[in-house]
């Protein structure tokens, strides 16, 4: 039996019939619309169509990626009862939670704000930070650190410079004001991101197990509160057509991108944490992210197995005459939905009054299973909550191996007749690589971020991983965090590229003395309806899943951002990973910088021998080709186990992994610490078919360890015992010269000159004006 249609909406413009054109403009396929009608047993109202369009979008429903993501391990196999256990799994809540022992836990997650940042870099990036912070304190955790993963085109483009300046200023504006330190990040510059930058932001928070909150609406009659900023028409950009057609006002007057208010966010953090600390007061809580009110109401009801009723007249609004479509789809920032224990309304109101914030009682929990929305006493939406959250269609898209892979994967330097470097070329390449923005110091960026607030930052930005001291009750714990993803490798070999992103991230953590705990990922890809893009997506996810399973590092949450395309085509596939590691003791914290003359440098993992996908090929030869470097998971694990063991034994004083730019770049970077050092290195004994591949190739699973002279033999012996190749490279010197003996002769650079090129490159580029 067909249900009767809803009564006419108070706003007559919302009563127009749903045409195929309206359905299409809401991003729903005709067959999806059929499903909507079947679930409702009637045609939806326009407000309901808007609600479905958001909840069944890729962003909320993962309809194109859900089957792929099932391959991720979500629990740690080797977790002890107290440590590393996953307390809240991926997909359950706003963020995953990991046990760090003694009754404490960490919540963390990464999320993208790519498209808003492309349109309006400052606000786009700022609200990206705001959104991810809310995901964390929603769980009951106090946010203690931020990181970000950014991708831009090359800095010779004035548009890219404008985007970089805006994104960095936006992240700084928001993060600095809320007082959460931005302690680490990764930034790559590549033409494929021209016009479509990637802005992925991560937040991590700490909490006790008993403080974990869920986004659940339970308890018949419990009141539903709306707290935080008032709702405006901002963020309706995704549905801008509707505003145009539906309202007399010009849509051009409205910001398509939301505007962030970090001060409001700071107040919300404090007020919400204070409210959650009151025993038994909060039943459930969820932030209002994408399509805030829609998403938070139906998700909390669906998770709680209940229903929810809200009255839009009680929703704080900062613009007049907003209709139900606009209020339900608004993406105004800094808003939260809270379900409170009935009878204790006064307690939540008191907390918010202290912070000069308003807590509005907008509805209640029901037992109908439905999300019912009223305005001016009239029902404007009435939908089964679980249909919105769990019944979105799921697709297995068509995948096709991109044709370019035939050529790139077969490319070899020899086959292409690429001449090897002579000594002059080898000498010139190092400063060129060090000054490429992808490799160059990111000081221009991170000095704009407050990376020290909360006074727990142990390893400042600029080393392999950020390290933070957590004050947990009366005890202290140290964690490390690192982001990674080389999109160039993923372009050349999606599966292996993703595998590399993960193993390199783990290697970075191990180099800083940490045991990896858990991972969060941000899958940035092009339009999944193009089979080549979907192939990249599928293969990258498989690569991540393989690495996570092999290393027993569970995925505790993440984000998918598709449709990252510019007129020139899709971005390089970029499955950004971020892994959190645990450092047992403060003395195990290890940096990448050599400390004093006389220390010995030992290469672990063997001589590099591959050129494919390297920055050297890109920067010096102008090529983006070859296969991504090989990954041997077993060898990688042996290397990481050895390194961690040697760090803990106190033998390894500094460690740095070989990544973009290869051996010489890694060596130079180890000399860019506080003291003006040099190094005398002999590579002549290493097996090297080609000089370019030895010096600048990016073979995986390599680390340079720095040890006291008297410990060198022991390190090499331990490496042999652990079946890890170890080659003694030479010594750190105090004279500020980097001397390298190669099979082709001797190379020499002044470290200060190299450092200047490396340190000032982005700064100099950013002195030129931006455009756009």
């Amino acid at each position, binding site marked *: 039996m067909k249900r009767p249609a809803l009564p006419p909406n108070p706003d007559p413009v919302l009563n127009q019939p749903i045409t195929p054109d309206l359905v299409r403009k809401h991003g729903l396929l005709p067959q999806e619309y059929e499903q909507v009608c079947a679930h409702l047993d009637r045609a939806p109202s326009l407000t309901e169509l808007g609600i479905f369009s958001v909840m069944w979008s890729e962003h909320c429903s993962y309809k194109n990626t859900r089957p792929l993501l099932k391959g991720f391990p979500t629990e740690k196999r080797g977790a002890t009862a107290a440590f590393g256990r996953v307390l809240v799994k991926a997909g359950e809540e706003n963020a995953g939670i990991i046990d760090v022992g003694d009754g404490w836990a960490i919540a963390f997650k990464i999320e993208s704000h790519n498209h808003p940042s492309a349109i309006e870099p400052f606000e786009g990036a700022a609200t990206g930070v705001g959104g991810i912070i809310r995901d964390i304190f929603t769980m009951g955790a106090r946010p203690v650190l931020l990181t970000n993963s950014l991708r831009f085109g090359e800095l010779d483009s004035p548009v890219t410079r404008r985007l970089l300046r805006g994104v960095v200023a936006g992240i700084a504006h928001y993060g600095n004001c809320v*007082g959460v330190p931005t302690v680490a990040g990764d930034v790559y510059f590549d033409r494929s991101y021209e016009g479509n930058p990637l802005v992925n932001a991560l937040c991590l928070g700490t909490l006790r197990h008993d403080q974990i909150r869920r986004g659940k609406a339970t308890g018949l009659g419990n009141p539903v509160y709306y707290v935080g900023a008032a709702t405006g028409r901002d963020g309706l950009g995704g549905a801008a057509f509707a505003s145009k057609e539906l309202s007399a006002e010009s849509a051009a007057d409205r910001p398509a991108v939301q505007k962030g208010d970090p001060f409001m966010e700071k107040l919300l953090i404090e007020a919400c944490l204070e409210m959650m600390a009151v025993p038994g007061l909060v039943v459930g809580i969820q932030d209002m992210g994408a399509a805030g009110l829609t998403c938070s109401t139906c998700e909390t009801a669906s998770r709680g197995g209940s229903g929810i009723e809200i009255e839009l007249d009680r929703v704080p609004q900062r613009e007049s005459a907003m209709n139900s479509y606009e209020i339900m789809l608004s993406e105004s920032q800094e808003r939260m939905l809270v379900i409170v224990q009935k009878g204790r309304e006064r307690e939540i109101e008191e907390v918010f009054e202290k912070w000069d914030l308003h807590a509005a009682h907008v509805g209640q929990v029901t037992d109908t299973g439905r999300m019912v929305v009223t305005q001016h006493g009239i029902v404007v939406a009435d939908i089964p909550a679980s249909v919105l959250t769990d019944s979105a269609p799921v697709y297995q898209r068509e995948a096709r191996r991109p044709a370019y892979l035939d050529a790139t994967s077969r490319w070899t330097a020899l086959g292409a007749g690429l001449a090897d470097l002579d000594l002059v070329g080898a000498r010139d390449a190092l400063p060129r690589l060090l000054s490429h923005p992808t490799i160059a110091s990111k000081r221009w960026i991170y000095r704009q971020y407050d*990376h020290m607030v909360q006074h727990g930052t142990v390893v400042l930005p600029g080393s392999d991983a950020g390290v933070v001291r957590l004050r947990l009750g009366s005890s202290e714990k140290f964690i490390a965090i690192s982001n990674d993803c080389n999109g160039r490798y993923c372009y050349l070999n999606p599966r292996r590229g993703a595998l590399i992103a993960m193993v390199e991230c783990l290697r970075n953590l191990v180099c800083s003395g940490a045991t990896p705990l858990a991972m969060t990922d941000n899958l940035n890809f092009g339009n999944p309806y193009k089979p080549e893009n979907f192939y990249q997506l599928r293969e990258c996810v498989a690569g991540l899943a393989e690495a996570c399973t092999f290393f027993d590092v569970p995925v505790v949450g993440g984000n998918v951002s598709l449709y990252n395309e510019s007129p020139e085509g899709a971005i390089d596939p970029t499955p950004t990973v971020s892994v959190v590691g645990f450092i047992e003791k403060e003395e195990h*914290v290890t940096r990448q910088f050599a400390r004093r003359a006389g220390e010995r440098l030992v290469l672990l993992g063997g001589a590099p021998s591959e050129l494919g996908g390297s920055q050297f090929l890109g920067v010096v030869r102008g090529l983006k080709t070859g296969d991504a470097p090989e990954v041997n998971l077993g060898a990688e694990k042996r290397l990481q186990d050895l390194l961690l063991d040697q760090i803990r034994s106190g033998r390894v004083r500094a460690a740095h992994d070989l990544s973009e730019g290869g051996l010489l770049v890694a060596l130079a970077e180890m000399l860019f610490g506080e003291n003006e050092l040099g190094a005398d290195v002999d590579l002549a004994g290493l097996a090297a078919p080609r000089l370019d591949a030895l010096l600048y190739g990016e073979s995986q699973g390599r680390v340079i360890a720095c040890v006291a002279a008297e410990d060198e033999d022991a390190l090499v012996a331990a490496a042999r015992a652990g079946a890890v190749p170890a080659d003694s490279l030479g010594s750190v010197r105090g004279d500020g010269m980097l001397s390298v003996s190669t099979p082709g002769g001797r190379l020499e650079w002044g470290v200060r000159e190299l450092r200047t090129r490396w340190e000032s490159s982005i700064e100099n580029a950013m002195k030129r004006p931006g455009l756009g």
Partner: protein
Amino acid sequence: MNIAVLQFPGSNCDQDAFHLFASGLGLATRYVWHKETSLGQADLVVVPGGFSYGDYLRCGAIARFSPVMRALRAHAEGGGLVLGICNGFQILCEAGLLPGALIRNSSLEYRCMTCELAVGDAGPSFNTRTLGARVRLPIGHGEGNYRIDEEGMARLEERGQVILRYVDNPNGSLGDVAGIRSESGNVFGMMPHPDRAFERFHPSQDGLAVARAVLMAGSRVGTGAAS
């Protein structure tokens, strides 16, 4: 010794300041909410860093009207010690408890880094004998560019009120000024963060000596107060 750390909406270095005195120096330290009208018993009142009220208008311009500021003014006028760090320094300038003003960095960008600072000869406790010629402290601000008229600058110099100067000026401050004290010697303001320089793993531990130098300036509490 009793330390009071003020909390405004938007303060975000309140915990840092708290731990500098509580964990770093082992002193009795507590927070005072901005709506309080009394400071209780306090030998030193710390106005911490952050973005009070979001600082959307002008740094410290709204915070100066908070209820607690009346009590702070009375405390300062009675000779009590006050230390404003970063946003706290900006608030003290806005409130007229310290001369001058802080405007946007000349780079127009926020700066977070560790700075070398020359110690000024600024009174019996805050000088090169107690602190050495140089200290290293982190900064983290977008508006730390100190400004004052020529006459005011001359007075500061003449009376030895400049307590810290940047060796390599990061923000365009007039006279490289990083911190000053009041003419009466009991109100201190500085952009650098002693509250980010006291743990083992911090870039330096000079924040402890700087905090002690401020504490020792309290004539009412004697010079041997801090240990």
